[in-house]
């Protein structure tokens, strides 16, 4: 399985990326939404995109909207991974097309549970 980790913090990209790699994912990273769209346009189609909300250039909500408006990216599952934890913000993200929502800080166990809910946990990973 492939994942694209989108966050303006390199530290957070490494944290999320390493958790996903421990679950067997191959990962790529992008520092903001525009850079992530460039990765998709190159032809890298991930099973999962983990998307921060507050980023420079193009924020996570704009990225989610852009991906959802392109039928070529329909297979990409979008999970917001963000500090934005108010109910209204979660509703906005889900309405824009995000499939799941993870609030920072989170643990590897929480990520595993979300992936299991999405059917994106490789079978060899035990719950």
């Amino acid at each position, binding site marked *: 399985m492939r994942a694209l980790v989108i966050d303006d*913090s390199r530290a957070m990209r*490494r944290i999320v990326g390493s958790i996903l790699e421990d679950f067997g994912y191959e990962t790529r990273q992008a520092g903001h939404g525009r850079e992530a769209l460039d990765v998709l346009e190159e032809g890298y189609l991930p099973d999962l995109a983990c998307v921060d909300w507050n980023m420079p250039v193009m924020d996570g909500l704009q990225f989610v909207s852009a991906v959802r408006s392109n039928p070529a990216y329909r297979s990409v599952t979008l999970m917001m991974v963000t500090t934005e934890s108010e109910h209204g913000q979660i509703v906005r993200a889900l309405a824009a097309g995000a499939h799941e929502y993870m609030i920072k800080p989170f643990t590897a166990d929480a990520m595993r549970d979300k992936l299991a809910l999405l059917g994106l946990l490789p079978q060899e990973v035990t719950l």
Partner: protein
Amino acid sequence: MSELLSRVQEPIPNLLDPAIVQSIADDVWTSLVGDGEVLVPLPVPAPEVTVSAWVQITGPWCGAVVVTCDEPTAKALTECLLRARPPVVIEPEDVADALGELANVLGGNVKAALPGPSTLGLPETGPTPPATRPDDLCRVDAQWRGQYLTITVQGAVPAPHAERNEVPL
């Protein structure tokens, strides 16, 4: 502008208990810094030179959430955050990025505890910004691995170069 905001907004001690900030920090430390890593709420003397990272909150309450420690502590925090795949050499930009992300996660959770709606700015790092109003300050003085570390939620921190945006009277 910041003076006007300070005048009208509810001071942070009326909105946020330091115990909530400590509780948020406990979660952040366990999840991001590492299992068994604890931010102990016992103050130690401040070092002469400190570095800070902060995020601005803009809403019914305006201000910043600021994390402050000394440089070796910031570097040690960075090593912990990057524990899975640490680079061979930790560069200053790695430290700024990691400390900024700590401020970002703390700030996002503090924002959620405040009256909203509010927006969160992007992390900034640099010399510790002054707290402009002592009554609009929520402070957690703590130590991590025995070293000085503070988290402050402080009202209406003037943005860097804010004077350039001031409208002359």
